[in-house]
C-alpha cells in the first residue's frame, strides 16, 4: 500500500506541475460568442467511417436561451492541432464567460492540488515533529501534545477553518491566500499525523536497535531521523493519501462559499461557484466538471486506502 500511496502523491504532484502545459487555451480568455457553450466531445468516426480525432463545432441556435447546436456539416481538428483562426473547440464545454472549462480545470489543478500538497507537507512535518517528540520524550510533553491533538481532532474542522479564514481580510492577493490556506489546513491536519507517529515512536523507542544506537552514543535527533522515522514511513504515506483529498475538498468548499481564492484565479473551488445557481447547473451541467475531477481524486485515494488498514476519513 505504501508504494501505491507514494505513486498517488507523485501522480498528483505531476498533475500540478504539468497540467497547465496541456491546456489548449488561456484559462482567462473569454470567447464572446460561446457563453456556456456545451461540450464538443472528440470523435473518431463520422458518416464515412474512421478518421483522425475531430470535433463538430457548435453554432448558436438561440442567443437568449444560450442554446447551441452541433454543426454536422463542418468538422474541426482537436484544439491542440487546430491552426489559428478557426472557431474555438471546447472539449468539455465553456463557462458562463465563454472560457474553456478544460483549460481552467487543468490550470485549476495546479492551484488546488498545489495548495493541498503544500498543506499536506506542512501537516506531515508538524505532525511528525510533535508526535515524534511526544513519543520519544514521553512525560508531560507527551501528555500535553496529545491532549492538544485530541482537542483539535474533535473540533468540527470546517468551522475552525471558516473562523480562521474569516478573521482575515477577505480580499488578498492570490499568493497570500495560498500561504494562508496552507497554514490553516496544516493547523487542523497535524493532529491526525501526530497521534499515529507518537504511537509508533513510543512503541519503537525501547526496541533493541534503538537502544543499541543510543548506547553507541547516537544523539536523540539522529536516532529519530535515522531509526525511528523509517519506521513511520508507511504510516506517513497513508496519512498523505488521507489528507490530500481532504484538503482538496476543503479548498473547494472554502472557495465555493467565497472565502477561498478570488474568482479571478481558476481553482476547482472557484470553478464550482458557477454551479451555485441551480438554474445554471441544471441547464449547463458541464459546470460540475471540477466536482467530477475531485470525485476521481478522492476515489483513487480511497481505493489505495482500502487496500491497507482503514483510518478515519477526515472529510
Amino acid at each position: 500500500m505504501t508504494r501505491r500511496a507514494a505513486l498517488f502523491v507523485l501522480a498528483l504532484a505531476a498533475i500540478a506541475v504539468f497540467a497547465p502545459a496541456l491546456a489548449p487555451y488561456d484559462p482567462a480568455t473569454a470567447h464572446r460568442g460561446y457563453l456556456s457553450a456545451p461540450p464538443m466531445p472528440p470523435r473518431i468516426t463520422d458518416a464515412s467511417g474512421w478518421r483522425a480525432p475531430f470535433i463538430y463545432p457548435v453554432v448558436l441556435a438561440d442567443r437568449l436561451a444560450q442554446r447551441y447546436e452541433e454543426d454536422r456539416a463542418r468538422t474541426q481538428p482537436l484544439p491542440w492541432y487546430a491552426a489559428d483562426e478557426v472557431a474555438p473547440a471546447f472539449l468539455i464545454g465553456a463557462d458562463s464567460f465563454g472560457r474553456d472549462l478544460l483549460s481552467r480545470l487543468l490550470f485549476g489543478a495546479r492551484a488546488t492540488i498545489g495548495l493541498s500538497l503544500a498543506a499536506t507537507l506542512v501537516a506531515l512535518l508538524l505532525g511528525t515533529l510533535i508526535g515524534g517528540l511526544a513519543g520519544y520524550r514521553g512525560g508531560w510533553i507527551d501528555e500535553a501534545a496529545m491532549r492538544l491533538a485530541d482537542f483539535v481532532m474533535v473540533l468540527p474542522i470546517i468551522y475552525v477553518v471558516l473562523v480562521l479564514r474569516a478573521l482575515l481580510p477577505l480580499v488578498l492577493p492570490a499568493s497570500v491566500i495560498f500561504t494562508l490556506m496552507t497554514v490553516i489546513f496544516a493547523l487542523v491536519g497535524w493532529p491526525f499525523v501526530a497521534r499515529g507517529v507518537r504511537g509508533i515512536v513510543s512503541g519503537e523507542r525501547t526496541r533493541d536497535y534503538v537502544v543499541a544506537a543510543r548506547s553507541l552514543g547516537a544523539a536523540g535527533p539522529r536516532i529519530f531521523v535515522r531509526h525511528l522515522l523509517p519506521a513511520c514511513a508507511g504510516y506517513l504515506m497513508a496519512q498523505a493519501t488521507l489528507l490530500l483529498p481532504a484538503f482538496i475538498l476543503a479548498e473547494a468548499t472554502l472557495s465555493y462559499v467565497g472565502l477561498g481564492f478570488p474568482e479571478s484565479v481558476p481553482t476547482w473551488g472557484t470553478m464550482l461557484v458557477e454551479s451555485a445557481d441551480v438554474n445554471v447547473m441544471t441547464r449547463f451541467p458541464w459546470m460540475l466538471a471540477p466536482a467530477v475531477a475531485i470525485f476521481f481524486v478522492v476515489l483513487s485515494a480511497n481505493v489505495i486506502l482500502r487496500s491497507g488498514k482503514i483510518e478515519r476519513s477526515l472529510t
Partner: protein
Amino acid sequence: MSIGRYLLRRALVALLLVFVVSSGTLLLTRLAPGDSATDAGLASDPAQRARLRGELGLDRPLGAQYLDWLAGALRFDLGWSVVFSRPVADLLSERALNTAVLASVALVGATAVGVPLGLYTGAHASGFGPGLVRTLSVVILSVPPLLGSLFFMLFAARTGWLPVGGMTSSVLADSGWMTWAIDLARHIPLPALALALPLAATLEQLQSQAIRESLREPFVRAAQARGLTFSQALRHHAWRVSLAPVLGLYGLMIGSLFSGSFAVEVVTGWPGLGRLMFDALRARDLYLVTGCAAAGACFIALGTLTADVMLVAADPRRRMGDLR
C-alpha cells in the same frame, strides 16, 4: 475508577470544550481587524458606526466585554445579532434544531445501512455480494457531502422528483401541521442522503474491519470449537467485541458530520447552524459567531459523551475497572 467517576470526568471535559471553543471564538473574532459596524453594511458614516459599536459593547475593553458576555451566557443570554436583529439565543435554538434534524436523520440512516452491510462484508471474505458492496462503498465514500449535494441537486432539478433546496416550501407557510410535516419529509431526503451516504460507507468499512479482526480472536474460535455455528459465534461473540472500535469512532464522526452538514446546508439552502455561522462570519456578527461556535461545541460534546456512554454499555471490560 468507577463508571460514575469516569463519566463525570468525561462530562467535565465536554463542558471545558464548550467553554474553550466559545471563549476562543469570541476573543479571536474580537481581536481580528474589522467588526460588524464596518462589515455588516449597516452603518455608513462614522457617527452611526460609533453608535452601533456602543450598543454592541464593541467600544469597551476586551476583558470587560468578555466578562459581560460570560455572565450573560450563564443565563442563556448570548447577546444580540446585528444581521438578524434578534437575540442570538432564539436564532440558535431555531437553526440548531434544523441541523439536529438533518444530522440525526443522516446518522440514523447511515447506521441502519452501514453497520449491517459492514457485518456482511466482514463476515464473508469473498463472493460476489460482498465484493459488490465493498466496491459500491468505496465509490460512495468518494462522494463527500459537498459533491453529493451538488450531484443530487442536479438530479432533483432534472427529474423534478424532489424539491430543489430549502427545508420547506414557502408557499405552504401556514397551512397546518400535517402539510408542514409532509413538506418537510419531501425536502429532507436530498440533503440527508448527501450527508448520510459517505457516512454509511465509512461505517461499513469500519464495521467490516472490526468484525474481521474480532473473528480472529481466540474466544470466537473457542466458541466454534464448542459447537456453535459460524453465525451464532458471529452474533453472540464477535459482533459484541467489534462494537467497541465502531462506537469509539462515533465520537469522532460527529465532527465530520458537522463539517459535512455545513457543505450540505450551504449548497442545498438548508437553514441550519452551518449556514447561520457562515452568514454571521461574513458580517462579523460577533455574538452570533460566538453563539454558533458554542452551539457546535455543545453538539460535539454531547456526541462524544453519548459515544462514551455507549462504549461503556457495549464493552463489559470497560465496566471492570479497565477505564482510562
